[in-house]
């Protein structure tokens, strides 16, 4: 954690310092980037550290967002209840899906996570009585916290998201540097060797899966509050693969990299869509370009140069 800690702390301090001077549109985008960065970092635990490419990560993000949206609109639940329910819902889905997915390896894992992600999308889309189907759930109120500032304003919500993202980053950073995290890396490098050394490979992979899904749920909670609106778009396949792209673009197995990747994609998406409706075309080209020209991601490429 020592190496990235200083630049990341500087980056966070700079962000916090310049935020009041920013107009509301870039500030909103920054907030969005922070929340999506949490999602990307959560996937990095699976993809970068454990070597499990999940193609259905939006599911846990979306389940939590839906939980918050339903509780906050239909039941006027407060922040603590929504946060707990959202994260718990994501953890529960990850715990069940993980049982199925972790049995499979390699390509099968990829395809099963995709299929499981589509199950959640199908529920969001078809279970109209609960999720309002394609229309989505709108009017999610920002949380009322015992703070002097209202989170309805962009700046306080930005600080709120910054604090949440930093918290997630620190916790995940501690996790991947813990003995547990090192075991995950060992599994990524050689599963059979770790098994021979006596590690319970299945359990480690399963826990990584559940933790990753839970943190994705945390991002989903923030997202529901940020957007005020949750719809099947949040759980669709494109959201899952976009997250995968963020991780690949930033550099898997670095935590900071995927966060940067998330910011790049969020800003790119919003700026490009100002000029053209052909955003998907450009995003598709970005996917192909990243794979052809920067297969280790931005941070990976920088590190290689640094050596």
């Amino acid at each position: 954690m020592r190496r990235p800690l200083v630049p990341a702390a500087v980056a966070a301090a700079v962000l916090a310092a310049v935020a009041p001077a920013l107009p509301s549109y870039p500030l909103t985008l920054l907030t969005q980037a922070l929340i999506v960065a949490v999602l990307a970092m959560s996937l990095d635990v699976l993809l970068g550290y454990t070597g499990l490419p999940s193609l259905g990560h939006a599911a846990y993000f979306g389940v939590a967002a839906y939980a918050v949206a339903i509780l906050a609109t239909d039941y006027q639940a407060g922040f603590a209840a929504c946060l707990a329910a959202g994260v718990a819902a994501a953890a529960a889905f990850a715990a069940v899906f993980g049982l199925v997915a972790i049995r499979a390896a390699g390509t099968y894992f990829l395809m099963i996570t995709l299929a499981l992600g589509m199950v959640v999308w199908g529920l969001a889309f078809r279970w109209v009585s609960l999720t309002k189907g394609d229309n989505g759930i709108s009017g999610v109120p920002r949380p009322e916290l015992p703070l002097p500032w209202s989170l309805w304003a962009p700046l306080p919500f930005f600080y709120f998201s910054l604090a949440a993202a930093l918290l997630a980053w620190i916790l995940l950073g501690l996790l991947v540097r813990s003995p547990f995290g090192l075991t995950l890396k060992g599994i990524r490098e050689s599963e059979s060797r770790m098994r021979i050394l006596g590690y319970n490979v299945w359990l480690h992979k399963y826990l990584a899966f559940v933790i990753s899904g839970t943190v994705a749920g945390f991002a989903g909670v923030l997202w529901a509050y940020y957007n005020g609106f949750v719809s099947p778009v949040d759980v669709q396949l494109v959201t899952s693969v976009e997250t995968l792209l963020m991780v690949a673009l930033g550099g898997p197995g670095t935590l900071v990299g995927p966060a940067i990747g998330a910011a790049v994609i969020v800003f790119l998406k919003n700026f490009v869509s100002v000029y053209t409706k052909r955003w998907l075309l450009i995003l598709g080209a970005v996917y192909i370009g990243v794979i052809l020209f920067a297969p280790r991601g931005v941070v990976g490429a920088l590190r290689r140069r640094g050596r």
Partner: protein
Amino acid sequence: MTAEFWIIQAFNGLSYGALLFLLASGLSLIFGVMRIVNLAHGSYFMLGGYVGLSVVWRTESFPAAVLAGAVAVGLIGMGMERLFLRRLPGQTLGQVLMTIGFALIFQDLALLIWGGDPYTIPVPGALQGSVVAGTYSFPSYRIFIVVVAVAVGALLWLALDRTRAGARIRAAVDDREMAQGVGINVPVISLAVFALGACLAALGGVIGGAFLGVYPGADFEVLPYAFVVVIVGGLGSLPGAMVGSLLVGLLDNFGKALFPELSYFTLFAPMALILALKPTGLFGRA
């Protein structure tokens, strides 16, 4: 729940399964030979439908639409394999991101060319109406789909099991390096299989375009079905694709009819069960 309900739903499930077979057999074959998870496979289905639609509008000929869709998409598949995917041997994540990139590009191009409105490919005159058997009537077009799928399945089986080219493909599926070592031109086989898989998906797209419709988003809607089929049946296995398609077609249809709000779960629960018992699918090998 009358007998009629069960018979009609089973027939609908069968015909949907037949369509899925056209889609999934190609996906499975491509995976078998090249170990590539092709996320653009649903796009081939959608593009096939759109190309077929344009051809039907101009020529009013259904066979021409099928042919044009299959050839055009087959060429697209060849281009993707030859120019891009061949550069990423063994890089699962890279292949996934690249094929997704193509899927997004195809989706946007289709939106640019054909717009956002849903269309239906008109059913050819000879296949309109229905066949009456006793007290039940079955739409002719759905019977046609089943016949096509059975014919394609039989041809694929004959080609794979009874011809020299098929033996080469099977060798490449079993062990790519050994096949190369005994003088089989694996790159050419990969190209051919990729083109064939794309053709089959496009065939499914044109034929399916007459009863599912052709619309933006169809690509990502059929993709998980194809995936569930090959997960259940086992990657790279033709019998697996057959059994898987039939199973998924039936499950999906009965699920939608009996539990409309939870229909995806009726698809997913049996898949989970099969995986729990056999992680490589019914006919798959590790």
